[in-house]
């Protein structure tokens, strides 16, 4: 008889904060840059250097904590986590263990089975490490400290998740939330969001937790899903075989689809946390918290609701559009300018998403402006161009955010205004395709499509097919 097991999963997610400077010094956090050009004595651990806390980091941490329904520790401190590694210039990381800034929050996720609440155990601030590159040629490693000192918040969940699907939903929600807050762009692939998975298994129905392992090096949602399945299977196999699960850190290799233990006797994993004497404690008073609360931007759920109410969008449409803050902003400003929310929504869900997919771009990379999109919508609405031409114009707007009026004028794309041109074209076509005309008059009304097409061709597409159809119909029936 096979036992039923469930996996119990908790996540530790590191989020890189989008501040201009590092957490403890005035170096730029800008991505890229030649190695070690965004460094100073502080973030390279030079003797005699001292850290000074970036206030914006605290602000962002508060925003994140409040958005995740956390309690704020109004007295909070920094501790040193001591371990030796070359990407860690001081061989200690300044983090928060004993008194993290936020505690006991929650977030709601949507899964196929419905809504679920995932608890947030705590959120704390810490500094990022530098980057290690392995040089195969010289058989050594190279260190770049540009990233050392970049501010992070670590979001530690309760072990409330039970499947890869829930984990993905959780990460998605976290990412969206951070984006909406503007505190991070949260890109898993770029490393501005990193997730470590803690997983244990237990027989269904048992309340106690099994021994858990920690998995690292999970660089995509797919990798996370695969890793979870594999680890669950591995642990079950051990238990079924009467062997214990060892608490350890495992590194996931997504190419080989397996994990291996990162055991090293060189690393006692005893971090000897103690309060950092170089930094003074934080006191976060009620006024500060209230101010951050009042300045909190609208989050995704609220926005969705508002879009349904105010703009009369369907739940589905609202959901798609609010799936990215950039898209939502684009929609809202466009809708407010042209006052045609349904049309704006259609353009976003239709052409915009289509173009993004074709160009393999993220919504955040959109350069299309709402002013121009709104103008295009108005132009179409007034009948100045037809839908097809509008789509062409849109593509150019997508690429270079051109002004639609200018573009239409330059390329002469405006629909023909003169009704005589249309009647002439209709007459010409009817003359050229007498057979089709005859067929229509015999009752094969579907042939009108072909004739409309021919008229459109003659007019170089600069006519409204609906209008053409009407003129043709009346000409054919007379």
């Amino acid at each position: 008889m096979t036992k039923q097991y469930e996996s119990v999963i908790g996540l530790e997610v590191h989020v890189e904060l989008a501040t201009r400077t590092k957490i403890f010094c005035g170096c730029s956090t800008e991505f890229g840059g030649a190695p070690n050009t965004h460094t100073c004595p502080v973030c390279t651990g030079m003797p005699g250097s001292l850290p000074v806390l970036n206030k914006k980091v605290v602000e962002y941490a508060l925003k994140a904590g409040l958005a995740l329904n956390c309690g704020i520790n109004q007295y909070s401190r920094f501790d040193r986590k001591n371990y030796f590694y070359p990407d860690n210039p001081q061989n200690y990381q300044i983090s928060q263990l004993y008194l993290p800034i936020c505690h006991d929050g929650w977030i709601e996720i949507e899964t196929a089975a419905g809504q679920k609440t995932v608890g947030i155990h705590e959120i704390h601030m810490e500094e990022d490490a530098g980057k290690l590159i392995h040089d195969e040629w010289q058989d050594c490693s190279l260190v770049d400290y540009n990233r050392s000192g970049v501010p992070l918040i670590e979001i530690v969940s309760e072990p409330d998740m039970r499947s890869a699907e829930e984990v993905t939903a959780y990460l998605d929600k976290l990412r969206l939330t951070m984006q909406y807050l503007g505190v991070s762009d949260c890109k898993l692939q770029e490393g501005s969001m990193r997730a470590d998975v803690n997983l244990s298994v237990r027989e269904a129905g048992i309340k106690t937790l099994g021994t858990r392992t920690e998995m690292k090096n999970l660089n995509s949602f797919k990798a996370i899903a695969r890793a979870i399945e594999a680890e669950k299977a591995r642990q079950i196999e051990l238990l079924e075989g009467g062997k214990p699960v060892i608490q350890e850190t495992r590194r996931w290799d997504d190419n080989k689809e397996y994990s291996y233990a990162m055991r090293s006797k060189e690393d006692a994993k005893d971090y000897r946390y103690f309060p950092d004497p170089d930094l003074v404690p934080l006191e976060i008073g009620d006024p500060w918290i209230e101010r951050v609360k009042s300045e909190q931007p609208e989050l995704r759920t609220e926005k969705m609701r508002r879009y349904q109410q105010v703009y009369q969008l369907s739940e589905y449409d609202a959901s798609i559009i609010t799936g990215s803050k950039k898209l939502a902003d684009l929609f809202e400003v466009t809708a407010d300018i042209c006052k045609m929310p349904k049309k704006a929504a259609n353009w976003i869900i239709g052409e915009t998403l289509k173009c993004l997919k074709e160009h393999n771009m993220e919504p955040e990379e959109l350069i299309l402006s709402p002013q121009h999109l709104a103008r295009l919508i108005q132009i179409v609405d007034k009948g100045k161009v037809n839908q097809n031409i509008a789509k062409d114009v849109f593509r150019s707007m997508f690429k270079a955010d051109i002004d639609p009026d200018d573009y239409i004028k330059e390329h002469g794309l405006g629909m023909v205004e003169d009704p005589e041109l249309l009647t002439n074209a209709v007459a010409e076509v009817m003359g050229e395709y007498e057979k089709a005309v005859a067929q229509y008059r015999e009752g094969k009304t579907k042939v009108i499509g072909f004739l409309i097409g021919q008229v459109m061709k003659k007019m170089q597409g600069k006519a409204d097919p609906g209008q053409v159809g009407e003129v043709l119909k009346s000409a054919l029936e007379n």
Partner: protein
Amino acid sequence: MSNKLDKEMIEYVSILAKLDLTEIEQIQAGADIEQMLDYIDKMKELDTAGIEPMPHIFPVRNVFREDEVVNADASEAMLRNAPNQSDGQYQVPKTVE
């Protein structure tokens, strides 16, 4: 009350401290630490129930800096003292993941 540090403990601490001690040094270190701990144990006499640990002397809180870039490219200066560098990066033996 005497503190006793066994060899395993000394080895453990030297891993934490990233120090390579010879046999003799290990024994000496053990003896030194034991002696100091015996003396430090004096603190046990003190009744500190209900006393909060005091990491910081002054009740100063909230020392911040603004989120403004103030540092320019200092890579040349930073690398000046590097024992081993390559391509503007610090070079170390291969790190094992």
